[in-house]
C-alpha cells in the first residue's frame, strides 16, 4: 500500500502540473479583448466592409467583415489600436477551387474601392480607438467625401 500512496501523490502532482502548464498555452494573443462595433458611411450602416485593428505594440492585425447592419466583432489587443476599413467591389458567388488566371497584370489587381481608399490603410485612415476590457461598442463613422 505504501507504493500505492506514492503513486497517488505522484499522480496528483502530475495532474496539478498539467493544469499549471495549460495556463500558459492558448491562443497566443494574451489579454485580447472582444470589441464590438458598427461601421457607417455618411450615417448609413455599411455592410460587407472589412475592418482591421492593429495592436498598440505590433503583433498581427485582426480583421472582421461587417454584417448587413454594419456590425462587427473581433478580438483586439488592449491599448490604442489604429483602425482601417475597406469595402471593395465583390463579384460574389460560389467559391470553387479556381486558380488565379494568368492575365492578372498589375492594373487588374488594384482593389476597386467603394469608399475613400485612405480608410484602407491604418496609417492614413485617421481612425483609432483605445481598446480596454468592458469598453462600449465602437462607432466607426466614415464619410464618402471630405
Amino acid at each position, binding site marked *: 500500500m505504501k507504493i*500505492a500512496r506514492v503513486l497517488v501523490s505522484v499522480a496528483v502532482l502530475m495532474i496539478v502540473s498539467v493544469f499549471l502548464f495549460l495556463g500558459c498555452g492558448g491562443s497566443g494573443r494574451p489579454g485580447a479583448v472582444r470589441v464590438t462595433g458598427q461601421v457607417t458611411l455618411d450615417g448609413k450602416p455599411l455592410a460587407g466592409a*472589412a475592418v482591421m485593428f492593429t495592436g498598440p505594440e505590433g503583433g*498581427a*492585425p485582426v480583421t472582421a467583415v461587417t454584417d448587413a447592419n454594419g456590425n462587427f466583432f473581433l478580438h483586439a489587443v488592449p491599448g490604442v489600436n489604429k483602425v482601417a476599413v*475597406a*469595402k471593395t467591389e465583390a463579384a460574389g458567388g460560389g467559391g*470553387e477551387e479556381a486558380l*488565379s488566371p494568368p492575365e*492578372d497584370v498589375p492594373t487588374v489587381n488594384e482593389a476597386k474601392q467603394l469608399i475613400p481608399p485612405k480608410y484602407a490603410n*491604418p496609417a492614413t485612415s485617421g481612425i483609432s480607438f483605445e481598446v480596454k476590457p468592458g469598453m462600449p461598442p465602437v462607432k466607426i463613422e466614415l464619410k464618402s467625401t471630405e
Partner: protein
Amino acid sequence: MVIAIIGILIALLLPAVQAAREAARRSQCINNLKQIGLALHSYHDIYGSFPPGAVFYGGTDYGSGPINNRGSMHVRLLPFLEQQQLYQLFDFRNGTDNLRVSTPFPDGNTLLRSVAIPVYLCPTDNSNRKLDTVPNQVQVSNYYPSMGPTYTITDNPSCSCPEYALWQSYGSPNTNNDNPAGPFTRRGWHFVCRIADVPDGTSNTIFVGEVRADCSGHVRAGWSHSNKWGAFTQIPINYDSCYPDVASAQAAGKTACAARCTWNTEVGFKSQHPGGANFLFGDGSVRFISQTIDHWTYQYIGDRRDGRSPSGY
C-alpha cells in the same frame, strides 16, 4: 486501485508522448527546409541565380515565343535533391502541369505531378494524408517560395474577400509580379533573383516558408504546378483560410475570407505547429517565427531590398 493509478499515469503520459512525436515531426519538417535551402544555393552556384518561383507565364525558353506553364521552383530543384531521374522526365518544350510519362512507371501512363517528393512534405501537416485521395492525382508541397510584401495581392471574383484591400496596404511600393518584394514570383524568367538582388542580406530575408494544402487552393494544385503563386507576407502567419468553400465558411459563422479560394488570405504562410511557422532564410538558416510577430517586422524580413534588417523577432 493500483491499476487505476497506473491508468491515470498512462493517461498523463500520453500527451507527453504526443508532444515528443510532434517534436520529431517538426525536426523532420525543419530538415526538409534546410535541404531546400542547400538545393537553392547549389542551383545558384551553377546558373548564377536562384530558380524562378514558377514559370506560370511570361518569358521564353529555348528561344521560342512566350510560353506558359513550365513548372514550379520545385521542379527545377529536383536535380539538387537527388531526384535527377524524375527531373529528366520533365519535357519543357511543352507545358508540364499535366505531363504524363509512359516509363519508367509500371502503369505506363503516370502524371509526373502524382509522384510524392518526401522532402517537399512536412509530416506535421495532416492535410498530406488526405491528399492521397484528392482527385486528379496531385501530390503537394508544404513549402512555398516567398513573394514577400509584393503589392499586387489580388482577389477571386467568385470567392471575394473584402479584406484584400487592407492587406494591400502592407505591400511594398512599386512592386508587382515582375518586380516582387520577395525573392520569388511565378512570373517566370521575367524575374529570377540573384544574391546581388537581396541588398538587405540573405540572412535577413525570407526565401521559403510553410504552407498547407487544406488551406489554399493554389497549394492544392501540387508541387510541380506552375501556378504556385508564392506566398505573401501581408497575410498574417496561420491566418485561418482552411474552409473548402464560401458556403462551409459561412456555415461556421466565418466570412469568405476563411475559405481557401480567395487568392489573398489563402496565399499566406501557414502550419500546424503551435503558434507559428518555420521559414527558410536566404542564408540557409531556418527559423520558427511566431504568428504574433509585429506585422511590419514581418514585412521587413519578407522584403529583400527595403533597407531594413530587423532583429529580435
